[in-house]
């Protein structure tokens, strides 16, 4: 791919960060409902990086990770992931189902609870973004991946040419619980070109008022 998409302009980066921040903030509110504790969020980061770099950013010394991922397709496509250290997966499930369950019950529930949690959180995030940009997207069912950052981001199976991605992430911490993780969006370069178009349409819409009510939810 010879697309010079790595050159995102400042306003494009700003728009992506702001739109994803709105999406992730909505997602955090859903997570808060599920775990009953406040969810603290970082300021979003938007970068065009290699998949290797993206994988290192989410590892932070922890190579055993769990992720719930959903792919999305539309005017742009990619994957949304909820990522946290594998060691905290049971703690997350326990905080969702409540304390009244035995460890073996929680282990039985783990897959299903993770998929459901991921589905709610990632949907809240993506649906908000879709509504802001007014572009419908198809979302896959959630699936669970376990492994290091490179496994999560398919580093090994991607041909060397196409491994630059648009990587947006926010880290979250659940207050009073030992749980922290990331909500991340990963988009391939061909997607970035159409994403830039969509973002420009959106910015134009903001500047070209008063005809439309920009940013409005549908």
């Amino acid at each position, binding site marked *: 791919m010879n697309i010079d998409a790595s050159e995102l302009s400042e*306003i494009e980066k700003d728009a992506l960060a702001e739109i994803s921040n709105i999406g992730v*903030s*909505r997602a*955090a509110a859903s997570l*808060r409902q599920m775990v009953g504790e*406040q969810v603290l969020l970082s*300021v979003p980061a938007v970068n065009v990086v290699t998949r290797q770099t993206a994988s290192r950013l989410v590892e932070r010394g922890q190579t055993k990770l769990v992720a719930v991922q959903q792919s999305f397709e539309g005017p742009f496509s990619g994957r949304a992931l909820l990522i946290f250290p594998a060691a905290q997966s049971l703690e997350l499930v326990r905080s969702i189902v409540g304390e009244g369950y035995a460890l073996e019950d929680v282990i039985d529930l783990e897959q299903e609870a993770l998929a459901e949690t991921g589905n709610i959180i990632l949907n809240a995030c993506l649906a*908000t973004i879709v509504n802001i940009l007014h572009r419908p997207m198809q979302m896959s069912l959630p699936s669970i991946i376990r492994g290091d950052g490179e496994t999560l981001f398919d580093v090994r199976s991607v041909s060397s040419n196409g491994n630059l991605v648009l990587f947006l992430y926010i880290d979250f911490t659940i207050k009073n619980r030992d749980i922290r993780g990331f909500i991340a969006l990963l988009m391939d370069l061909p997607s970035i070109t159409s994403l830039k178009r969509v973002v420009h349409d959106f910015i134009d819409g903001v500047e070209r008022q008063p005809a439309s009510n920009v940013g409005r939810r549908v």
Partner: protein
Amino acid sequence: MHLRVLVVDDSKLARMVMASAFRRIRPDWELVEATNADDALRTIQGGSVDIALVDFNMPGTDGLELLARIRKGHPKMPIALVSANLQNEILARTRELNAAFVPKPLTDEAIEAFLSGATLRLQRTVQ
């Protein structure tokens, strides 16, 4: 009533969206922008800010902390937190500060509701 509104958001896009809404619903009001808490406090110290709309998730001082500082010096100023983060703790803290909550994505209706209430409060203060 011609009022001066301070909009605080680190995102340029978010400030553009806000400005766009003001052009539709309060075209004759004056908008001043700040990109962070220090900027915002300096602008307010300079005087003549009537209303403040503050983003929550900003680098450095977050929107709630900023609102708390504004509230200290301006117990009657109409202020609002602007965020998509609808968590109970954030809504509760916003109420404690006697501030409004305007959800993102922004709608004209939500800003209109806040501004109408703010105008009434300011008129009562003047009388």
